């Protein structure tokens, strides 16, 4: 599903056999419904516990539903310790440090390695049914979950960066198609502003965050043919680099052209989708694909049904990323923690990828499982929000974030990410030039390395 520039994993004879077994268990051969019910996910743990604990960030009723199912299936209480996204990491780490029992938690690709290195994440090797899961991982999910010879996490979701546009406004501005190049994007926006169609044609996702503000820059740099580190790990931010020129161009939409909505600097993915609902912008800059489920929801959006997904310009190459569920070392019982983890990031007792499909149907999230991404069920649930073939076509041109900016695999990436956030906003608000910001970011690599 994702294109990767890294060497692909090849299947050994042993792995092939494992994969075949997995496919059988997935229910793709005759008599398989029974097979699914009898799979390792249906096995009763030998030990007993009163409750299992999950810590995560809230999204609607998704966790309440899976908790109820777990309770019904196993008679064990599924405790959810949920918080808002921005408070989650602090809450989780504080609870962990404070000695709380946490069987499972969630995070992003960039954090999982740091957490594993600090002894927070329990490796999943040799747990029953793991091989079947791994065999169904997308290539990107394999990059996220497998490192240092172990499997550390199951998929939470996957996503790609795409554009959105407000169809009615595009028509009102007199354009019969959305932009196909960055030059055309500027032309359309300048004209829309000049004609008084809208004051700020572009709403960027430029709010501070691990992959919100930086993700916009990464995805556009990648789309323009650039990257951030070469294969040897040398930065690609020097004078004339694609990343630097992309930042210069991006900043001009705020400073020189005044076509970028000032609210862009405060909104993350969901916030930008909600702001876009107001119908004041023509385009919503590259962001996670799933915002469509908000802007096209008649229950909450005044412009529902009028927002279209638009692929990245040029050859359409874009960036993908994903989240994970993992077992923590603070679990009370490994068997039950594994059972909990499977309900979140794997299969439920009936052999279904229940949570993955629910995340797709309730939140429009993609999956780290190939079989889920390829399923008609996913396409059907997504169709109420957008053009599914177009979205999946964009997906085919996506490359995992780790290939775009390989530092996400390094422990120093997060402190460096703080510097990136600061320098990007300084550039977008005209406090610094793109050159000055990139120079500071280059210096910041050494600072970040020293800080860990």
């Amino acid at each position: 599903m994702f294109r990767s520039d890294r060497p692909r994993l090849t299947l050994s004879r042993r792995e092939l056999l494992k994969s075949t077994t997995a496919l059988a268990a997935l229910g793709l051969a005759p008599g398989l419904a029974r097979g699914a019910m009898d799979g390792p996910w249906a096995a009763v743990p030998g030990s007993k516990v009163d409750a299992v604990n999950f810590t995560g960030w809230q999204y609607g009723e998704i966790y309440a539903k899976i908790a109820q199912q777990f309770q019904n299936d196993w008679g064990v209480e599924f405790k959810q310790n949920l918080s808002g996204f921005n408070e989650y990491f602090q809450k989780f780490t504080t609870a962990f440090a404070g000695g709380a029992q946490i069987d499972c938690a969630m995070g992003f690709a960039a954090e999982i390695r740091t957490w594993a290195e600090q002894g927070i994440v329990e490796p999943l090797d040799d747990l029953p049914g793991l091989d079947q899961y791994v065999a169904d991982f997308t290539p990107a999910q394999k990059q996220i979950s497998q490192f240092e010879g172990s499997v550390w996490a199951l998929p939470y979701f996957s996503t790609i960066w795409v554009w959105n546009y407000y169809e009615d406004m595009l028509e009102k501005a007199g354009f019969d198609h959305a932009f196909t190049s960055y030059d055309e994007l500027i032309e359309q926006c300048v004209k829309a502003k000049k004609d008084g169609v809208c004051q700020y044609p572009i709403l960027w996702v430029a709010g501070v965050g691990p992959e919100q503000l930086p993700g916009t820059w990464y995805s556009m740099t990648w789309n323009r043919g650039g990257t951030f580190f070469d294969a040897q790990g040398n930065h690609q931010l020097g004078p004339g680099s694609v990343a630097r020129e992309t930042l210069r161009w991006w900043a001009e939409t705020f400073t020189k052209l005044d076509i970028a909505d000032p609210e862009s600097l405060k909104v993350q993915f969901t916030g930008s989708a909600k702001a876009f609902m107001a119908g004041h912008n023509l385009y919503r800059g590259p962001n996670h694909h799933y915002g469509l489920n908000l802007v096209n929801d008649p229950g909450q959006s005044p412009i529902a049904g009028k927002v279209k997904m638009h692929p990245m310009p040029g050859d359409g190459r874009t960036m993908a990323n994903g989240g994970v569920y993992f077992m923590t070392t603070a679990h009370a019982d490994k068997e039950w923690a594994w059972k909990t983890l499977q309900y979140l990031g794997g299969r439920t007792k009936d052999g279904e990828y229940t949570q993955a499909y629910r995340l797709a149907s309730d939140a429009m999230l993609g999956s780290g499982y190939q079989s889920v991404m390829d399923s008609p069920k996913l396409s059907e649930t997504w169709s109420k929000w957008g053009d599914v073939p177009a979205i999946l076509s964009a997906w085919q041109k996506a490359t995992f974030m780790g290939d775009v900016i390989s530092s996400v695999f390094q422990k120093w990436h997060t402190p460096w990410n703080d510097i990136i956030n600061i320098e990007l906003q300084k550039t977008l608000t005209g406090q610094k030039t793109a050159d000055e910001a990139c120079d500071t970011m280059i210096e910041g690599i050494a600072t970040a390395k020293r800080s860990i």
Partner: protein
Amino acid sequence: MAGGARSLVAPGAVGPDRNRRHPGAEEGCVTRPAPAPIKVRELSRRQLALAMNAPSVLLMLVVLVFPLFYALYLSFSRVRIGELRRGFPFPFYGFENYVRLFQDELFLHSLQNTFVFALIVVVVEVVLGLAIALLINQQGLWLSRVTRVLILLPYAIPPIANGLIWIYIYNFKLGFLNRSLFQLGFIEQYIDWTGIPETALYSLTVPYIWRTLPFAILLFHAALQGLPKDVYEAARVDGAGAWRCFWHITLPLMRPIIAVVVILRTSFAFLVFDEVLALTQGGPGDATWVASWFSYKKSFAPPFNIGLGAASAYVLALVIGLLAVFYVKVLYRRAQ
């Protein structure tokens, strides 16, 4: 309560049952000898003081002194989340965290922002707090009674909720502030208050002051009510107007409470966090990075450098401590 045992019963007090005689005792019945009085040892004043203070001292040790020394210990250690869960002992790191801290331009910038923020907050809260306290202290105005209640409302709002309220007030396109100012003709175009580096830090002070000002008003108002009335009456007899009364009577008498408010408000303003979290997350750029935000980010974001976060928090605590000592020496004692 056996003989010689300590008792907290006051000397001379005798239990009611011991005084009660058996029925018929006066009719010549043989009476039992009265039991020997229980010796009650009176606590000395010093012992009583110790006994009364022990629980609170113990509580202070647990909730105040222990965290203080624990944070100090952490600041000299190399600690991350995993080590914190495993517990003592942590690898000793010497002054490395402090060295890194003072080499970090972002920390120094955050500290500078904190000073600016605290200065604005303290000055505004003292001036505005005193002014509002004087207004609501007017006994003749019935409205002042209503105002007294209303003025406390912001103080009851949780800090993070306050931050969220102001997100909407400051919203660039739809916010109440821009609309009001524009309609009133104060601004010619909408301003992105928290999105522009030049205004972001100052914009943060407003929600903070709005939330915490009632505390200053309460203290000033309580102090105003304790001022002697006869001094004012004498001054009026001598022909002093309102301004002269304020300048020559109210202000000098209020100096101790002003010193208290300055000390307390400075300490709290240095710890501003919730408004930063809700409104700006340190942005745009590093325009609203303050010291407590720095500590938070270093401690609770990967790679979870708890030791560095503790060191930065300790530096902040020391700064606040030094300022408090300075205030007490210069302002409070002089005022007294």
